[in-house]
């Protein structure tokens, strides 16, 4: 099998393979290089080493069951992909989440975005030799994951954002952990700015390397920090606001030259803006509306089920620790009222017949979420750019076709042109600054 680079290569130059399992490749991607000494004359990429058949698998699952698959697409900011998928289905169904749920979604998205930028920059700087920055950033990421874990139950692949709202309310003890996470991220960013911004070595390695002009960026379909580093102002949160982003005041940082240094700087500045968004969302979030008007005595579940056989239960039932945050009283705040789209609360499922029927009809094969026929496209701002979902529905409970518009796909397609004429050592920070995530590239 002859590759294009083998056909086009000069007889005297060296062909080198930076193979699928390479330490500086974030994930698995193969770059074939034609070299003259250390200078790259030509490059060809081969992708698909992490192709996991996401789109085909989704055609065989129901809309509710395929949430965990969306987590694993852009696995450094999983909550944003969840959000993208869920908002697409909500657009198709025509429902809207309650206000408190939207604020929670914004909060979680921004925490995910910070964790995405931290991981990208940590990997990029580690490969250039700045190991301290890597350790600091991963430590700050741990603090953020602690906050996410307290509310959602998992550090990374959470499946927290559900169709119609979120799965559970924020944990009552979230404030101290969130304060600690924000403070440690701010302190860390100050340290990293001090270590890297004016560092001669860093500037030499990243300034004026792999410059992308605005026209080239738009022609390639770049979105996200890579496009903004070239100077083009396009952010989905500002251009087509979704959730409650229109009520929150934040800036969108732009670069001027479109080189690696600008991509690094745009990400650092975006993290600061995300912290601002989190603080504003915390202040503006509406309080829990239910007032606990029921009797204050907590009844055990087994007792409640027994008692419900003869009469309707009025008391509040204590739930298992796994269901913390999704008690019946908070349901109006976190999930929409439309019954066919959400799982009914467990108190209803186990104590009265209507709840049981709702539960059964949600999960039974052939029933459940069945959007009307049609197709829809919706996009959110992910860590690397515009994450878009295109869903074609044929009226049954499985999507007929689900397509992901992954931002990394378009950005990595430009890598072949970006590294021409540079040295091999320049490939490393370039590739790191693009933030390629294998799950999104190869689906």
């Amino acid at each position, binding site marked *: 099998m002859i590759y294009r680079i083998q056909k086009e290569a000069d007889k005297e130059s060296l062909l080198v393979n930076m193979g*699928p399992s390479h330490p500086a490749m974030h994930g698995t991607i193969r770059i074939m290089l034609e070299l003259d000494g250390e200078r790259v004359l030509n490059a060809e990429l081969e992708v698909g*080493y*992490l192709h*996991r058949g996401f789109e085909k698998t989704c055609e065989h699952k129901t809309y509710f069951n395929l949430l965990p698959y969306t987590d694993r697409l852009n696995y450094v900011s999983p909550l944003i992909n969840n959000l993208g998928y869920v908002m697409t289905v909500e657009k198709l169904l025509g429902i809207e989440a309650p206000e408190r749920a939207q604020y929670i979604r914004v909060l979680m998205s921004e925490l995910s975005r910070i964790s995405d930028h931290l991981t990208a920059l940590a990997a990029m700087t580690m490969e250039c030799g700045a190991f301290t920055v890597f350790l600091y950033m*991963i430590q700050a990421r741990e603090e953020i994951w602690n906050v996410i874990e307290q509310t959602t139950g998992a550090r*990374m692949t959470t499946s927290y954002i559900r169709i119609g709202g979120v799965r559970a309310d924020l944990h009552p003890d979230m404030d101290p952990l969130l304060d600690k996470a924000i403070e440690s991220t701010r302190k860390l960013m100050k340290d990293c700015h001090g270590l890297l911004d004016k560092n001669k070595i860093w500037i030499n390695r990243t300034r004026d390397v792999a410059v992308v002009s605005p026209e080239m960026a738009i022609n390639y379909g770049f979105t996200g920090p890579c496009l903004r580093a070239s100077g083009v102002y396009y952010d989905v949160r500002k251009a087509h606001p979704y959730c409650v982003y229109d009520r929150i005041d934040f800036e969108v940082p732009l670069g001027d030259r479109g080189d690696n240094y600008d991509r690094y700087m745009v990400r650092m500045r975006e993290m600061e803006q995300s912290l601002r968004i989190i603080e504003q969302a915390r202040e503006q979030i509406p309080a829990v509306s239910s007032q606990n008007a029921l009797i204050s005595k907590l009844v055990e579940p087994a007792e409640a089920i027994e008692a419900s056989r003869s009469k309707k239960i009025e008391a509040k039932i204590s739930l298992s620790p796994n269901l913390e945050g999704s008690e019946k009283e908070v349901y109006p705040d976190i999930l929409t009222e439309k019954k066919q789209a959400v799982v009914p609360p467990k108190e209803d499922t186990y104590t009265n017949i209507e709840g049981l029927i709702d539960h059964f009809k949600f999960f039974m094969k052939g029933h459940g979420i069945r959007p009307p026929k049609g197709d829809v496209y919706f996009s959110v701002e992910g860590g690397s750019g515009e994450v878009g979902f295109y869903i074609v529905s044929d009226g049954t409970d499985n999507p007929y076709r689900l397509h992901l518009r992954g931002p990394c796909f378009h950005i990595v397609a430009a890598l072949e042109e970006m590294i021409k004429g540079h040295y091999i050592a320049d490939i490393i920070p370039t590739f790191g600054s693009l933030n390629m995530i*294998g799950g999104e590239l190869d689906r």
Partner: protein
Amino acid sequence: MAGGWITTKLNYVLGWGRKFSLFHYPFITACCGMEYMSAACAHWDFDRFGCGLTTFSPRQADLIMVVGTISQKEAPVLKTIYDQMCEPKWVLAVGACTLSGGIYDNYAVVQGIDNIIPVDVYIPGCPPRPETFLDGIVKLQQKIQNQEQEFRWKRRK
């Protein structure tokens, strides 16, 4: 009898030496790589278990950690890298996708890397918490200690 005592002690010493100085090759593909980064960094360090040196050449590694989904396209690459390692070598399969294909039962994913290479310790989870990862490394160390340390290198199939 004295010979038996000496070989047992030699076995013990070799096992002790090998288990506390593992050079590992992280074969990272997907999401579990994030938890690998967490387990390797300051909070849940696995350097204190002796496993800290990440070597980027399989020829100098004893342990290959397969972290993340292995697709059918990647399988020959994994086999090549496993074959390039010298005996004695161990394999750690991290994450549900390497154990059995995970949640991906389709045309593109290998249903478990033990279809391709022999595995020593399986670490379940999707992704496994760093504590589970460390537990897996400790179990591997116990296995290395109790193994027959061959000094005529027998090929393992």
